[in-house]
């Protein structure tokens, strides 16, 4: 069943490297906790884990190097027949069907493989600095690294799996690790609750995903990519309604995993986990799983449209795009009012993932409408945004981690251990950190710009592409419903500009708002290296863009460098023939204006400001600080009316989604459970108890008939004679 080109077997070993390493760390850690060598040399497991991730990175690089050339088709390799069985249908028994594990490599999985292993490695590096220097983590870091490694193998396995079932299996493994790591500080009730919320919410999605998979298995008789992607709909027609249902159900799974509306509530809470976890799992990798899944549906859309079923699956695409648009807008709105630095990033993640979903929606729309060219471009743009976002958001979280960590240390330093009532993550406690945290502030600036889409920086290229494609779909192809996501996305672009800038300026610009913020120093080892690397990766977006990353990731074309074309395409909306599309020219500049100019300027006017006198930021960001100071001086305005309005309150309450879900759980689900338990005890078991007590009382009653009086007995004998006579006569 594999394609003609076989993939080297060792590719399959990639997920197993961390999988085999984690028990070592877990058991060593459990037994040697507190030993000096364990703490200092092995970094409580961090070194082992880092080595393991290093091996993974090397292996991945080899794989990427091998397959990076022209590769238009995915390559699959079956490894084991996991379960084998027969199927009984009305036309007889089909023998030897199996659900097996194998690996599947194409450009998409290569890209994600690289992203995953690269970020895993860097974040592991970062963790050694971040986790091991914190006293609260004593005696439990081995757990962190072990769970981290399981997660990595889950992510790598999911990317490599050659069928939807194993994709789902690794997906769930990631979910477990996410749960464990969010609940890493298990003694904090909020962390425990957040972990539960995350697992349950994604589980709800997973249930739908699983049902979707089951339906899909029923449609194709297999879940292998090779078979599904190569399906011939002419010769083997399928039930399109069923297929549509299945895809929608699978998308619900993706919604849960990627924290989209309406299953988005878990992601902000998930920030209870350690910051490296937020960086890796809840920003850079795991949340991309949903996107990956939807991207994997792409060939189905292409295939159905290619086999004449044009537009049959368009509804699915519309749903995906609309969900994406709503989430992008909603999350951006909520991000306006967050003061917790990680929460802002979390909502930003949600919003950016929604962009990608919308882009994928557009891609699927075009695909189902039989326009593979446009579809591939949209797909490429979405995946490119995925790449950029992963890099940028991973870095942003690490940078925020750095800020939090240093804030924490400073607070410790000042308050001598008393840490009641101080929130190291609250941006209202920060301010003016640009001078104290030069590398962090630079990295954060680069990351924020990438997310905002400041021209030429990483995220710009991809976000521009997504917005253009969704508009194109809306305008040209009669997908009037797609105007909803198109407009929402455009507005969200401006909102992104605002809230990301707000975050940066609140943290780094202006005067320190608390005493703690004055005493911050960037001194922790191991933290800076990943930030620097990722800053370059983020800023290097222009390189990837000009290498035609988009067409590589969507079609497997080899890289070819053409910066000028890309620039023309991006800024002038010029196509290959050099024709400028005026609509898109306007659209492009509207986006740039909203996101790069209006949004940041409003943020600067509200939250900007110069540093304390005598302090200077690193040159890479000092211009930003000064600019903000300038803008603030000129255009500062009072936003308290807006900030105290009902809308802001609603946004602070996260638009009441959490309240609503809590209400459902507490008022609906739990009472039903308790009611069922009560019914079981009183009702079902009550019948049994009733039989028991009933027969007991029957026994008492019947024994009373044995009165003890001989005369009664004699009478009974006489009566018995009569009964005998009567019954026998009666019979006759």
């Amino acid at each position, binding site marked *: 069943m594999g394609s003609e080109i076989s993939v080297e077997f060792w590719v399959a070993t990639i997920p197993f490297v961390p999988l085999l390493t984690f028990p070592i760390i877990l058991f060593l850690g459990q037994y040697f906790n507190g030993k000096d060598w364990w703490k200092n040399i092995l970094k409580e497991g961090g070194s082992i884990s880092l080595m393991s991730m290093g091996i993974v990175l090397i292996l991945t690089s080899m794989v990427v190097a091998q397959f990076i050339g022209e590769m238009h088709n995915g390559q699959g390799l079956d490894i084991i027949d996991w379960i084998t069985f027969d199927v009984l249908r009305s036309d007889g*028994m089909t023998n030897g069907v199996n659900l097996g594990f194998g690996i599947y490599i194409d450009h998409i999985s290569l890209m994600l493989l690289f992203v995953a292993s690269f970020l895993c490695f860097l974040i592991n590096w970062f963790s050694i600095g971040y986790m091991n220097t914190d006293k609260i983590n004593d005696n439990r870091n081995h757990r962190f690294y072990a769970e981290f490694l399981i997660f990595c193998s889950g992510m790598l396995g999911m990317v490599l799996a050659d069928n939807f079932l194993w994709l789902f299996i690794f997906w769930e493994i990631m979910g477990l690790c996410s*749960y464990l790591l969010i609940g890493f500080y*298990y003694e904090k009730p909020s962390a425990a609750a957040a972990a539960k919320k995350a697992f349950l919410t994604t589980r*709800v999605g997973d249930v739908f995903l699983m049902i979707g998979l089951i339906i899909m298995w029923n449609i194709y008789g297999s879940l292998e990519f090779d078979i599904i992607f190569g399906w011939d709909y002419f010769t083997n027609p399928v039930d399109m309604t069923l297929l549509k249902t299945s895809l929608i159900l699978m998308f619900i799974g993706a919604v849960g995993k990627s924290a989209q509306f309406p299953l988005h509530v878990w992601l902000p809470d998930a920030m209870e986990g350690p910051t490296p976890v937020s960086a890796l799992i809840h920003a850079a990798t795991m949340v991309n799983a949903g996107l990956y899944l939807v991207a994997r549906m792409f060939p189905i859309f292409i295939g159905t449209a290619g086999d004449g079923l044009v537009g049959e699956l368009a509804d699915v695409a519309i749903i995906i795009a609309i969900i994406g648009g709503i989430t992008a807008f909603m999350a951006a709105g909520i991000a306006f009012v967050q003061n917790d630095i990680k929460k802002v990033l979390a909502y930003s993640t949600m919003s950016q993932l929604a962009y990608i979903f919308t882009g994928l929606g557009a891609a699927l729309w075009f695909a189902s409408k039989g326009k593979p060219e446009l579809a591939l471009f949209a797909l490429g743009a979405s995946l490119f945004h995925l790449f950029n976002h992963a890099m940028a958001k991973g870095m942003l979280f690490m940078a925020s981690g750095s800020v939090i960590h240093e804030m924490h240390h400073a607070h410790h330093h000042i308050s001598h251990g008393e840490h009641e009532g101080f929130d190291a993550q609250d941006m209202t406690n920060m301010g003016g950190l640009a001078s104290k945290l030069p590398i962090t502030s630079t990295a954060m600036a680069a990351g924020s710009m990438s997310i905002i889409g400041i021209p030429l920086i990483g995220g710009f290229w991809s976000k521009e592409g997504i917005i253009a494609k969704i508009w194109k779909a809306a305008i040209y192809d009669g997908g009037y419903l797609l105007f909803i996501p198109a407009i929402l996305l455009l507005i969200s672009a401006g909102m992104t500009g605002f809230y990301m800038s707000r975050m940066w300026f609140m943290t780094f610009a202006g005067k320190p708002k608390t005493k703690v913020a004055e005493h911050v120093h960037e001194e922790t080892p191991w933290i800076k290296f990943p930030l620097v690397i990722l800053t370059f990766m983020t800023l290097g977006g222009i390189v990837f863009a000009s290498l035609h990353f988009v067409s590589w990731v969507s079609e497997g074309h080899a890289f070819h460098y053409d910066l000028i074309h890309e620039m023309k395409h991006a800024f002038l909306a010029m196509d290959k023939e050099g024709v400028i599309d005026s609509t898109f020219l306007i659209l492009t500049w509207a986006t740039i204006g909203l996101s790069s100019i209006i949004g940041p300027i409003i943020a600067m006017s509200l939250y900007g400001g110069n540093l304390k006198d005598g302090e200077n930021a690193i040159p890479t960001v000092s211009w930003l600080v000064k600019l903000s100071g300038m803008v603030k001086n000129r255009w500062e305005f009072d936003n308290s009316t807006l900030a105290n309005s009902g809308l802001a309150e609603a946004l602070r309450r996260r638009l009441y989604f959490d309240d609503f879900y809590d209400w459902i759980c507490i008022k609906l689900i739990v009472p039903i459970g308790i009611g*069922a338990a*009560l019914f079981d005890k009183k009702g079902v078991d009550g019948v049994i108890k009733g039989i028991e007590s009933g027969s007991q009382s029957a026994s008492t009653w019947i024994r009373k008939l044995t009165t003890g009086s001989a005369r009664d007995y004699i009478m009974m004998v006489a009566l018995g004679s009569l009964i005998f006579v009567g019954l026998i006569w009666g019979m006759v």
Partner: protein
Amino acid sequence: MAENKTKLNDGMYVIGGLFIAISVLMFASPNMPSMENDWVTLPLIGLPILGSLLLMGFASAVPAWRKESISETIKYASLGIALIVLIITTLMMTDILMNVHWANITFNQYMYEVEYNWINSIGAEWHVGIDGLSMPMVWLTALLVPITIITTWNEKKPWYYHPLLILMGGCLIGVFVSLDFFMFYVFWELTLVPMFFLILNWGGKERKYAAQKFFIYTFTASILMLLGIITLYLLQDPSTANASITGRTFDMHDMIQNAQEQVILGNIWLGPGVQKLLFVLFMAGFLVKLPVVPFHTWLPDAHVQAPTGGSMLLAGVMLKMGAYGMFRIPISMFPYALVEFQMPLMIIGMISLFYGAWVCLGQTNLKRMVAYSSVSHMGIILLGIASLQPLGFAGAIFMMFAHGLISPMLFGVAGAFKHHYHTLEIGSMRGMAKHSPWLAGNMMFSWMGSLGLPLLAGFVAEVAVLIALWFEFGWWVIIPGITLAITAAYYLWSMQRTIFEGGENTELPKSLGDEKPRDIALSENIGLISLAILIVIFGIFPFIFFEMMSGYSSELIKQMLMDDIMRRW
């Protein structure tokens, strides 16, 4: 933590080492010892039963004040017997896995088959054999008994407790290998006796009530099965070939063959109404044993009151007797009735699954919750059967096996919790992860296994059953789907209230009194972790057994059910 570890004697290490050495030798040697002798099943049953009776007799002869001094001897003797059984069973399994093609011992074809006249006058035989259905169950039983012994190494009054466990194991293996109705029924009821004593003597506060309820409830159900057995027995054609006074035998092998011949001829064996009647009678026994809603209420009581080892075996193997019986008898013999009763079976399965999960959500007692989760999971087995698909059957059989690994761990953990914290209330404490990290880890692992986490054994079965269910019933699959979410909900909720939280003001159960919370003892940990390893192994490599289960199911359907299913379509 060090002072809490139980000191295990050298004997434990010797036995463990021997066991590992033999196992390694067994797997490593190119010429694996082949179990040629068909009578090999006899020691599997006889050794534990006789051994335990001897040990208990010996113990009762020792005066009370000296009993402590023999307890170690008896523990090691019990463990030794259990391990011998395990080794023999493992040899049989590897023998089958390596040397025999599964197709040869699938439906109604048996290995190690022995027929020996027992009660000649009524045609009851000592007829045993092993096929693709019973092999996993036999191995599971042989495996669980030593694990249970180790896990509950420090139970009170070990001179009776551990022999009772192996007695239980012997009877259970007897159920799984017997191919004669009479023998099957005898062992079926015999299993009640050791369990009754385990609950009665080592159980919780309400053990008296629970032990009686358990015994009476399941006995009542199984006498309906006995009525079925008798009816079926009498509806055979008397033959002079049989020496019995009625001219009939209890031979399951022959009866399945008769049924099969009729199926080949296109007839309904014994006629439609009779098949239905017999199906109902047999199912009555098996469904209560399984158990299904609304006949499940004995289970929570029995589990909550049973000692750890008792509930491990009860949940691990005894419940599976019901499912095993369904496959062995009604499904293999009454294909017509099975197809006719497909819908009721499915509905009962759905109710068990769904209702069980909801009830779990409302439980405050840990063991009770786990017990209801068993009810819920047994619903999946029923659904697999109702799907009438090879995959559904295989999934149901795998569920028997997987749940047989997971539920002992669940109960082992619950028992350890009770043992160390003296309570079973969920939410009576916070932060177990801090006080007892190993216990918390095991607990979390077992719960994750139970809620169907992929790569753990339970998932395979669930996926298989759900796929098969879709084939047959389409959108009904939503209900199991919702149940999966509810299952996750109750486990996670309990986890939050037990393992997590408890940061600054640690909350400990009141029952702990002035004691400091402890972690589990080494012996408990060994047992639980070995279960965990098995759960992972069979989660990742289900094909070790799934292939044979699948082969069995396919053959069963091909040879018995296909015509009926086709007819219905």
